């Protein structure tokens, strides 16, 4: 089994609590206030209309965006994880995520592993690439991959450091049936010990979630 799965299984239970979290990019754009408490092991889903703030919420949870208001707390085994350490506990995959095209897939993941301070970087990226079925194209440039394969590479990045929490934004976009099965297997494996959060409007992606919140932001309809 993969490096990622072993380390998740050894970690203590993660939980995410949000209290009145909201964010504004500009007038009518962003995330309306939302509160929830999710505790692993489980799968949680975030749904909502286009522009309702699903991706923003995931970025807030990943520590990539500081919310305009409210608090989002990540805890592992009851201990709150400081924002600066959040990247080591969270795996994030999103269609926005792009890789360096002058580096190969393996080099991109190796760079991420080194920056995250992993001890055995080669083992970690080899395991992550194998887990998503990209072992054969490890030396290819990301630009040479199809959009579905690129999505698998994003998943490999999210799994690289064996995070306790997986944040997946539209994880099966551009994927074929085999890719969808792969994502389902990864989520199924991760839910046993960790916490998986899926942001999507595709019911095939979120139907396995035990918990779901639907964002009722203005989206495109409200802005009109």
């Amino acid at each position, binding site marked *: 089994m993969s490096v990622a799965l072993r*380390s998740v299984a050894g*970690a203590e239970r993660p939980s995410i609590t949000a209290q009145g979290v909201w964010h504004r*990019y500009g007038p009518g754009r962003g995330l309306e206030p939302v509160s929830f408490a999710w505790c692993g092991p489980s799968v949680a889903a975030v749904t909502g209309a286009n522009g309702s703030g699903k991706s923003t919420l995931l970025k807030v949870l*990943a520590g*990539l*965006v*500081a919310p305009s208001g409210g608090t989002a707390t990540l805890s592992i085994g009851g201990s709150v994880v400081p924002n*600066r350490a959040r*990247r*080591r506990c969270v795996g*994030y995959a*999103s269609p*926005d*995520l*792009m*890789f*360096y*095209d*002058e*580096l190969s897939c393996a*080099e*991109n993941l190796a*760079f*991420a592993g*080194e*920056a*995250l*301070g*992993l*001890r055995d970087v080669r083992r970690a990226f080899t395991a992550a690439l194998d887990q998503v079925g990209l072992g054969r194209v490890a030396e290819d440039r990301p630009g040479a991959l199809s959009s579905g394969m690129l999505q698998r590479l994003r998943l490999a*990045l999210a799994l690289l*450091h*064996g995070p306790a929490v997986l944040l997946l934004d539209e994880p099966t976009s551009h994927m074929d049936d085999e890719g969808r099965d792969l994502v389902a297997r990864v989520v199924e494996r991760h839910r046993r010990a960790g916490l998986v959060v899926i942001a999507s409007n595709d019911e095939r992606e979120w139907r396995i979630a035990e918990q779901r919140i639907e964002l009722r932001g203005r989206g495109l309809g409200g802005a009109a």
Partner: protein
Amino acid sequence: MPSNGSSSAAAVWAVLRKECRSEWRTRYGLNAALLFAVTTLTAVSFAIGRLGNRTDLLAALLWIVLLFAALASLSHAFVREVEGRTLLLLRLVASPAAIATGKLVFNLLFLGVLELVTVPLFLVLMGAPPPRWGAFLGILGLGSIALGGCATLVGAVISQARGRGALYAAVSFPLLLPMLAAAVSGTRAQWEGGPVGSEARLLTAYAAAVVGASLLLYDRLWED
């Protein structure tokens, strides 16, 4: 899981290695900078010949060549990440301060390589008098740290703005002026046998202020 101890140093090192590898493979900045420096020096040399003891012109010309050869590349350290949409990947694996420090060290190395080619060529083609090496290299080194620090900071600030090209010039001009004045004055003084202590102190204070301000500001720059 990642080790905790020297994770920031690991992230800085990873960013630095990634920058070096990317530059080596694309030659995006170095070729353009060297071409500018060599072409300018050759053209000036053909047009006005050797400047001999015109130390005022020599000092100004040296810093003009270094400034314009370096700026085009230094300013792109963050712009490339934004335009390639790789900033998200970078932020997922390293703290803003680690990213900025890695890029600053890379920019200083870049300046070092540029100066390694440009300065000897300048001394030969312009017929400059033999410098007082200690003072000359001291001013050159401090000026480079100040220039690199300022260019990296401004590049980070304007990287996500619209019209960043024009903005870069507008923001960096007043910031670079005192540093350039001190560097030119110090370089001239060392050729004329005068003391360079005041210029060296000014450049040291400027570099410390710019790098210090950068480390304080970077964590706030990319929160949205």
